Structure formats: C-alpha cells, structure tokens
C-alpha cells in the first residue's frame, strides 16, 4: 500500500516539472537583455554577421514556440541543451557544480544539527539559566549576521591571522585528486588518498560553518520551544513518576517527539541550501550551483538557468518527500 502511495507521489512530480519548465522558459525571455550581445561584451569590434551567426547557433532566430518545444523535447530525453556562454552541455555543468553544493550543504546541516539540537534541548531543560540565555542570545546573533560579513570575518580571523584553515577553494593545488563522484570527501576515500581527505575537510570547515550559522540558530530556537512544550506533556510526567532516570526521559522520550517540528524546518532549509548559496560560494571561492546560476542569470544564459531551476524543483520535491518519510519514522501514527 505504501509503495503505491509512494509511486503516486513520485509520479506527481512530472506535471510539476513540466509546469516549472514552461514558467522558467517564459520568465527568462521576459528579462531585458540579449545573450548574444553579452557574449560579445562591452568591448571591441563586432559585426552584425557575428551577432547573426551566434543567434543561429543558439536557435534564437527561431520562433519562441519552436524554441520551447525544442527545450521540452530535449529535457524529456534528459538533454538540457548547451550553455550559450560556455558552449558546454548544461547537464555536464550541473553534474559538476552539484556535488560541490551538496557537500557544502550537508556539512553545514551536520554542523548546525550537531550543535543546535543539544543546545536547544539543554536550553529547554535549564530554562532561564545562564546557559539558556547565552545560547538564545547567540542564536539571535546567528540569525541576524549576514553570511557575507560573517564569511569575510571568518576568513580574516581563521585563515589570515591564525592560519588554521585555507581562505577559499575546495582543495589545494598540490593535492591531485581525479574526480569520480565529484564529492571531494567521497573521492578521496575511494582513492584512499588520506592527504586529500584531510585537505578537503580543512577547506570545508569555514564555509560550512558560515553557511550553517543561520540554520543552527533557527534549529536551536525551534528545538528549545518544542522541547519546552513536550516536557509539559503528561506522558513525560508519567515516565518520570515511573521512576525512569531524568536523562532517559529527556533524551529518549521527550526529544524524539520534540524533533518533529525540527525535521520540518531542516527539510525546508535543506532544500534552500541545496540550491546553493551564491554569497557563501562567492566569498569562499566555492564552485557550486549558486555561483553557476547567478552568473547564468546575469549572462542571460537561458539553457543553464532552465536546467538549474528544473533541478531545484526536483530537489524540493524530493526533500519534501524525505521529510514526510522522516515523520513516519519518528511518529508511526502519521501516514503518507
């Protein structure tokens, strides 16, 4: 039964993706700006012949309907077209940029959760203590600080002054690692290249911490408030009166239920993080989706933007599905 429901959920993504494809196609073409003029740049000589030749290459001389059909037909076969600026298949560009973004997003989420969940729980248990005030004050700061500023400060302190971490990039150039999956950490484990693994981790810490700061703050606050609610529930009182150890009641009985709102928040935020964060990626020279897409929008590189947005839509759909599956695990009363 569950399999059928699951299959139905997956099938509904098809019309969603189609709608997204059409909308992004239309919206991109409504933006002012000529992709061919951008390639030729604000410099040098160019002839009308040049402009025409490039328009032909990109099918921009064809009617809009034909361009849309070409795009949809290609996308259905998994062919997202060629980038105007880089003249490479969009699919290959996304496959290259996505692992960098996913690696960073997962590391950021991991750091955020590893800190935020214990902090949130302890803040609730020791409500109004100095620990609670400090943690919630810190969380407030974490939400308010812009990633750009936080990133530059982190680089100045930890990379330039202390020299603990590199300023930017994913790997040092001395470390040669042939990309297999595109995930530096996975590739270095597969190649048993422990130097690359250590180097990759060193490069990951600062951007992941900066990217995770916002999520950390949100999760800590959500965790605290839902924990406070759960601790007032009758079953917690029952567990306590049965004589269970306080620690067991808190970390086993209470926390599991308090996690449900947290999972919702993390699911939504993970979807956002997987889209790539242009600001963090720019500050840390991280070659991910955020930079790729923003550059493509500025260049009016329609095929790249179209492909990336479809990928985003897919990610959101799947992230939501994953969240729903998490609910079932956490609370068996919930069905799909």
């Amino acid at each position, binding site marked *: 039964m569950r399999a059928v429901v699951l299959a139905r959920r997956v099938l509904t993504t098809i019309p969603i993706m189609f709608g997204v494809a059409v909308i992004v196609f239309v919206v991109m073409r409504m933006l*002012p700006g000529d992709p061919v003029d951008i390639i030729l740049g*604000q410099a040098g000589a*160019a*002839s009308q012949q040049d402009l025409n*030749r490039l328009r032909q290459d990109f099918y921009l001389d064809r009617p809009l309907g034909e361009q849309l059909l070409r795009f949809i037909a290609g996308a259905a076969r998994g062919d997202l077209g060629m980038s105007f600026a880089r003249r490479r298949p969009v699919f290959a560009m996304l496959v290259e940029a996505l692992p960098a973004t996913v690696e960073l997003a997962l590391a950021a989420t991991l750091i955020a959760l590893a800190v935020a969940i214990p902090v949130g729980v302890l803040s609730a248990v020791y409500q109004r203590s100095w620990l609670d005030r400090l943690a919630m004050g810190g969380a407030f700061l974490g939400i308010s600080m812009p990633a750009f500023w936080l990133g530059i400060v982190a680089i100045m302190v930890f990379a330039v002054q202390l020299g603990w971490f*590199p300023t930017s990039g994913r790997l040092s150039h001395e470390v040669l690692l042939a990309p297999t999956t595109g995930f530096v950490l996975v590739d270095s484990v597969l190649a048993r290249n422990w130097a690359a693994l250590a180097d990759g981790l060193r490069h990951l810490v600062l951007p992941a911490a900066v990217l995770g700061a916002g999520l950390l703050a949100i999760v800590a606050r959500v965790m605290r408030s839902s924990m406070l609610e759960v601790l007032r529930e009758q079953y917690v009182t029952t567990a306590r009166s049965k004589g269970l150890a306080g620690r067991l009641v808190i970390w086993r009985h209470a926390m599991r239920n308090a996690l449900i709102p947290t999972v919702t928040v993390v699911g939504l935020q993970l979807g956002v993080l997987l889209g790539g964060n242009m600001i963090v990626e*720019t500050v840390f020279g991280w070659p991910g989706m955020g930079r790729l897409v923003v550059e493509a929008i500025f260049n009016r590189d329609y095929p790249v933007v179209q492909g990336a947005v479809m990928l985003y839509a897919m990610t959101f759909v799947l992230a939501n599905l994953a969240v729903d599956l998490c609910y079932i695990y956490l609370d068996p009363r919930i069905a799909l």
Partner: protein
Amino acid sequence: MHRQRLTAAVAVAVLALGIWAPAGAQERTLAFALDTEAFRRPEAEAVADNLRALGIQTEVRVWERTSLIARIQAGERQAYLTDWGSAFFDPYDLAEPKFTTGGRGNYSFYTNKEVDELLVAGSTGIDNARRRDAYFRVQEILFREAPWVFGYFRQDTHGASALVENWEPAMDSRINLHDVRLARGGVVAVGMNTNAIVTFDPAMFRDRKTETVLRNIFDGLVTRTTRDKVVLELAAAMRQPSPTVYEFTLRPGVVFHNGDAMTADDVVFTFERIIKEGAVGGQSSPRRALLGPLDRVERVGDNVIRFTLARPFPVFLQALVHFQIVPRRYIQAVGDRAFAERPVGTGPFKYLAGRVDSQIVLERFEPYYGGAPELPPVGPASLRGVVFRMMPEPATRVAALRAGEVHIIEDVPVDLIGELERDPRTAVRATQGTRVFGIELNNARPPFNDVKVRQALNYAVNWEAILRAVYRGYATRLSTAFLPSGFGYNPRQQAYPYDVARARALLREAGYAVR
C-alpha cells in the same frame, strides 16, 4: 464617445501642466534620470550633486548591467554611466563602435556623417600620418559636439607577493607568467577576478579573463609587450608585400604539448575555424569581427602562411596578438568538444588538471621553444607550474594574498589598496587600463538632442574632485573618448574645464532655469 473626449482633454491638460507648471514663464527646469550600475553609484551621486548645484534635477537610479544596457539600446534612457574596453590600442575597437552611426556600442545614438567617414578612413588607411589626422579631426568634432559627458580611464590595480620577481601587469590585462620567477618555491598561484573563465578553446570566447589563462597555454604568431608594442612569437619573420597581404614565416622546431610539430597547416586551420561559419564542431566563433576584413588564409610554402585582406586593415598585427594557434591533427582526432576540456597548445605551460570554474593547474612545458626573442628571458619557463584560482570576491583575493596562498591577484579595489600597501609581504602593481568610462547621453531625444545642454553638462562636472574622492587618484581624466595609450590620440586636445559660469550661460541659452 463623450467619455473618451473627456479623458483625452484631461490627459492633455495633465501633460501641459506637467511640462509648463513648474517653470511658470518661459524657463523650464532641466530634469533627468542618471542611470548607473551599482559599482559606480558613488561617482553617479557625486556627478548628480554637481548638477543639482546648478538647479538641474538629477535622479540617480541603479540597475543590473544587462537590463540597463537593453533599455539603453532601446533608446529608453536619457543619461547613463557606461564603459567600453579596447584591446587593439587603436580607435578601431573603441571610437568606431562607440561613435559610428548605428555602431554596436553607440549608446548615445550619436550621428555625424563626417565622423563616420573619418573613422572609416582611420581604420582602413595605409598612410599613418593621414590616419592620425583623421583621428585628430574626430577628437575635435567630438569635443565640440559633446555627445557624452566625457569621463576618464583607470589604473588597473593588481596585487603581488614580495616573492614574485620579474612581473609587471600588462596594459592589455593579460598575465604572462613565462618570464616570472619566484624567490621561494616554483609554483605561482594567481587569484582571478571571475566566477569562471569561459572555455579552454581559443576560438570560443571574447573576454579577457579567459585570454589571461589561455595565453599561458597557447602562443600566437605575434604577441605584445606589457605596453602596446607587437613582437614576433611563433612567427620567425613577417613581410607585407602589399597593404592587404601579410606573409608569416614560421619558427622551425616548435612542438605542441602532445608532441606534434607545429606546421603551417595548424595556422591555416586555426584561422579557418574562426572565419568560417559553423567551423567549431558545427558552431561559429564569436571572434570573427576581431579579424576585420580578413578574407582568406593559405599555406604558400612549407613554412609560410599568407593572410589576404579584403581591404587595408592597419591594426591587423595588433589583432593577431589575440589569436592563439591550435593543433589541427589533435582537434580533428578528438573533436572540438574534447579539445575544449583538455587543451593542447604550444605555450610555456601545459594543462594538467582543473575546471574553468574552480582552479586550473598548469605545469611547465619542458620542450618549449622559448617564446618571443624580443621579450627576454628566452627559454622554458622558470616556474615549475602555475595555478589559476577563480576568486570572485575581492576581499577573499586580498586575504588569500596576505595568507600566502596566492602570489598574484587581479583587480584590487581602491578601498583595499591600503591593506596591501601596509603589509611588507605584498605590494600593489598598477598599469594604465584600456577601458573608457564616461556618461553617455541620449543624443536622439530631448533634452540631450541640444548640443548646448550637452556642453553645459561637460562644464558642470568637477571630475578632478570626483576622481580624487571616489577613485583616490587611480583614474585619469580624458578629453574625449580616445585613450592616450591608443593610436591617434591627440595630447593637445584639452578636456572640458570645470566652469560653472559657462555651464550656467549655456543652460540659459538653451532655455533652462538655472540656480
């Protein structure tokens, strides 16, 4: 029917009030929007302050570059801060696109038949004295007709570690690493000011960042000093039997990174890929127009290539600097797309690893023929390797230079120059830029279809003060839109002085109220 008439009458009344009401009598207030991109906003605000002091209502608006240019091209904007780059040290790729009637970069919609003819005479003439005269005359006319509020050019400011020896930034903004030495270590890392270079294929890009990387992998028939002089590189000799024919004799014994010997066929193939339609894996090169009237390229001897032009093109050698020789056999064997992923050239460094959007690792090519004899040292590169890292954020580039992770960084913004100058391990290196910055005016529409208004604006802006305040002296005023580094620049042509009295008088003559 009545209702329509009533609406029309109201509309007319509103329009009339809008135009006449604030002025009262004969005099109108000059009011317009000054459009800019975010990075020039402080400059735009300073200009607007100058104009407001004269009673001109100036509203600064900030746009994304591409959207702004699209609106400008549609003729919907009045005055806009723009810039245009030139790579040939010649008005051919600067004044010509900017001022020819209907030119691709003619955002001011300026039109003057005499200027059109003079620009053609300048870029096709064979007598340099005459060409120069033509360009001098264009500068005179431009000054008088003031299609823009003429602006300035900047110093390109780069950062370098104290370990870097024998490097100075080039005016054409390429970073040539063949001649560079490092006091400690053998690998230079360069922090590039870009998200990504475009490609590894020398036929498929138009931007300078891509060229900076490719020029270290590929060599051309000719190259350029760090200033504007063209010198032979892969060519051992050049002769010009007629104004439209150039013949190059290739240097013997040059090999590509894959071991193939470079021949005349490779040179012919390189240029045919660019001038023929659909010659790069079915697609066309965006570089065609940079070769001007080049008509055909052929092998006329074992080692000799002849270029035939449709008409004289005096900047041909300057143009050739920007074309790199690619290996015919390799490309035909692996295909254009694979070549763009794994480039093979004849340059001082060969591709080892990396991606266009993260970092590109090159290693010294040991059998290198040595490079241009006129640009010592000649021989294989002194560096063991080179790394180009894409670092779009300027603060990160400066941090990486100070942390010793990179040795050269592109484009240090003026507000970060002090940080590098204070640090004894780093220095700022500057060179004359080749972009013209100015304020273009829409000459096709009121109020800037009136030459008096345009001239008034040129007198009304205190550029010296603005450049000092906003760019801290790293910018130099221009008399028109010709660069001092380019051919045909008239050093005697004075810029408009800051003269508020003359600005007021001109505005009054044009019928505007002034303060």
